[in-house]
């Protein structure tokens, strides 16, 4: 049994690394863009790299940059970064159910890497009935993390080399990737009502309260629909 697990660790890690490939491609422009914008906003190259390495959450890093430039109180910048990342509380509660066998230290390390795609792929593993092992999880997380940090550095060094990101479709790669993940969950009960409700909720809140709050608000609408109306939730009464 012990032999079996040590032997299966490397393939698990490699399988995780394979899951990271589309994420590496889709996230690269944002990692580079962050580095370039950070230097633009007055951060040193070291600070830009430190921010990517310590926070490791793209949207909130961008929001942080926007506020560094103005005359915003430091605590308010911190609060804004955390608010953008508040959706992770949901990921954490939901993905924690897949990692419950891990020892505490591995859990503590694993949750640091719980990005949007990391969470989605973790749930996909569970969807396919696969155990979410630490080796698989880190196989996916470490390449994403390493490149994210390197991209901040490269972006800060050569910020202005990508002259026409629009022509390369860079701004639309992440939505395509995320739609792929949404489709991957189509076997779940009540999938279509949840997707429809979240889509409507996020579009309305995007127009009314703006980005990035549409993520939490839109998701709340979809989750609420599941809590109130899904067959699994209703059969208790």
């Amino acid at each position: 049994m012990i032999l079996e697990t040590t032997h299966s660790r490397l393939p698990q890690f490699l399988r995780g690394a394979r899951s990271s490939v589309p994420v590496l491609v889709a996230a690269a422009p944002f990692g580079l863009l962050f580095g370039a914008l950070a230097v633009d906003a007055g951060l040193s190259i070291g600070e830009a790299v430190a921010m990517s390495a310590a926070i490791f959450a793209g949207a909130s890093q961008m929001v942080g940059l926007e506020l560094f430039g103005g005359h915003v109180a430091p605590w308010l910048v911190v609060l804004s970064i955390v608010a953008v990342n508040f959706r992770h509380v949901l990921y954490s509660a939901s993905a924690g159910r897949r990692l419950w066998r891990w020892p505490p230290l591995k859990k503590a390390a694993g949750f640091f890497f719980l990005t949007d795609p990391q969470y989605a792929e973790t749930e996909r593993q569970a969807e396919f009935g696969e155990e979410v092992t630490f080796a698989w999880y880190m196989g996916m997380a470490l390449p994403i993390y390493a490149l994210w940090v390197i991209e901040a550095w490269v972006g800060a060094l050569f910020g202005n080399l990508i002259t026409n990101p629009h022509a390369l479709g860079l701004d639309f790669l992440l939505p395509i990737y995320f739609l792929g993940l949404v489709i991957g969950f189509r076997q779940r009960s009540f999938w279509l009502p949840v997707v429809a409700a979240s889509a409507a909720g996020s579009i309305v809140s995007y127009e009314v309260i703006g980005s990035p709050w549409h993520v939490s608000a839109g998701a709340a609408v979809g989750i609420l629909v599941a809590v109130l109306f899904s067959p699994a939730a209703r059969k208790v009464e």
Partner: protein
Amino acid sequence: MSQTMWIILFGAIGTYLTRIGGHLVLSRFKSIHPRVQAGLDAVPAAVLTTLVAPAVFNAGPAEWVAITIAGVIGWFTGIMPMFIAGAAVIIALRSLFGV
């Protein structure tokens, strides 16, 4: 340490707490109510949809064509063919029509 580094440090601590907090709170409960369970099961599709829908809503014809083709391919195959096809279509349409 510069003020920027302090902001980064506390931003990082706060972000880590959001990533571990949901689990720490939930693991205090011995059993999960079916409604909570149903809500948690809806989280991935709900959150990920919000990263797609407004982007598509505010996009143009090239993006609509690309995401539709990608969606159909994704439904019948997997995420990798879908991703590559979507990227190819968006680059082709934008370079052909400049939209």
